[in-house]
């Protein structure tokens, strides 16, 4: 039922985006042609998370190779920022923050989706080279945190529990070794910025082709206005905050007085 509509959609996509989108090296026998349901996410006041449909096709000049089945890995990575990880210890009977490790740079959001079990889809060497798994994606940039394994693991554990980091195995659908699609769920607590989206094609654990694009996440409307005001004109923003507070405080008092007098 779904395949014809998707493939017809892809055919029009292929026609319109043919040369502009695929940028893999010319030597690769198989290349990715990609589409996104939307390439920008607008954070409005009632923003409640977003689902992005990532779909595409594999373009090839020669017949489908037969040695190993094609697999697809999709990663989406949010803006990176340094994170301080602190550990509590018992001291004089109370729990206090003792040791801390600064992870130089960890993505605010990181999701990996694959067609099969991660270990089978991607070899360890390739993971190391392209920094695809959650652990590698963080450690690759935190070069100065050696001897701090526990802290990095705590960072991943906490962010995974809150839904910011996820490994979604077998969530990429692949048809006829050519058409693939997956849905990425973005949480409501998104940070603004560029979300790097990477697609890897693998055969027998080896990356045969790679493609990158960016999803823009931006605040819009009132959210944009308030954020910009707070950064560019802090005194004005502070006065606005106080003005709202005083007026609503006074308004409520006046309203209740009116209700009482009636």
């Amino acid at each position: 039922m779904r395949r014809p509509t998707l493939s017809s959609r892809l055919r029009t996509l292929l026609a319109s985006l043919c040369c502009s989108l695929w940028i893999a090296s010319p030597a690769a026998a198989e290349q990715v042609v990609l589409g996104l349901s939307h390439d920008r996410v607008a954070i409005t006041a009632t923003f409640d998370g977003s689902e992005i449909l990532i779909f595409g096709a594999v373009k090839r000049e020669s017949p489908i190779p037969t040695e190993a089945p094609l697999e697809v890995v999709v990663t989406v990575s949010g803006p990176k920022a340094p994170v301080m990880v602190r550990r509590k210890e018992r001291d004089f009977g109370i729990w206090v923050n003792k040791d801390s490790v600064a992870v130089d740079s960890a993505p605010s959001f990181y999701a990996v989706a694959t067609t099969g079990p991660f270990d089978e889809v991607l070899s360890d060497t390739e993971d190391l080279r392209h920094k695809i798994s959650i652990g590698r994606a963080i450690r690759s940039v935190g070069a100065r945190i050696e001897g701090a394994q526990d802290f990095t693991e705590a960072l991943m554990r906490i962010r995974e529990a809150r839904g910011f980091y996820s490994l979604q195995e077998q969530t990429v659908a692949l048809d006829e070794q050519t058409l693939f699609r997956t849905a990425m769920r973005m949480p409501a607590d998104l940070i603004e910025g560029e979300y790097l989206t990477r697609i890897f094609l693998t055969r027998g654990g080896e990356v045969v082709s790679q493609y990158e694009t960016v999803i823009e996440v931006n605040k819009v409307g009132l959210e944009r206005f308030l954020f910009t005001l707070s950064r560019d004109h802090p005194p004005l923003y502070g006065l606005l905050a106080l003005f709202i507070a005083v007026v609503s405080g006074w308004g409520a008092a006046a309203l209740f007085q009116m209700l009482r007098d009636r």
Partner: protein
Amino acid sequence: MNIYLPIAEVAVNAFVVLGLGGMVGVLSGMFGVGGGFLLTPLLFFIGIPPSVAVATGANQIVASSVSGVLAHLRRRTVDIKMGAVLQGGGLVGATLGVAIFNYLKSLGQVDLFVTLCYVIFLGIVGALMFIESLNALRKSRRGGAPVRKHHRGWVHSLPFKVRFRTSGLYISIIPPVAVGVFVGILTAVMGVGGGFIMVPAMIYLLGMPTKVVVGTSLFQIILVTAATTMMHAITNQTVDIVLAFLLLVGGVVGAQFGTRIGTLLKAEQLRILLALLVLLVCGKLALDLLLQPSEIYSLSTIRKAAQ
């Protein structure tokens, strides 16, 4: 219904925030405390970053205090002169407090210090108030007219006497200024309005009548929290107007109900309730320090240096 907060960069349930604001507003109107000591930990709990919670809490307290103080002004239960004297001391104290805060920050243990401050002050104030008001309540139950003990001690032998008409006091100006300075320091260090210290200090140290205390405390809190809001908005840019608005819509309504409930209860009953509340928060914070947390690691994003 979820609302995305532009400064905190998290999405929260609007009704939960409205409810929080309303609850704190009721307390504010009833007891004349800003409710910051309760609101700030609750905001942490629903996932607001601490720096945003402290700054936005201050902004919300401005609104509920304005709402509450107007109701008290109409009833002529605000000692404006006393409030101004306390505020003068408060501003001096806040400046001192910021210096202390920054020094502790450089030592890297400011979180622990703030929590310990909460536990110690909430514990002492709560316990003293609870014992005192329980005694007062027992005495009034026994039927005898409540004996008003006038502070004829050292407070009255100090120089620079001033008449505070609304409070019916003729005392030296030194104790109110000292109380103001002390509360100002706590305000800057603990990020609260300081009402929970101010109210007992006015009752027990200055001997002000309980009726006047609540309105005067609210009046004093307005200026202190307004100054705190501006300071945070300018230096840290952590005041979230959307969050503050949701909190204060709940808060201003709550404050009106609180003021009404406050007039229905006896002064002793009011004090016992506030004492119990203070002890409850103190107990919760103490437990957090004593029990092993389920997650001993914590994360905090390091803000990129401001432009």
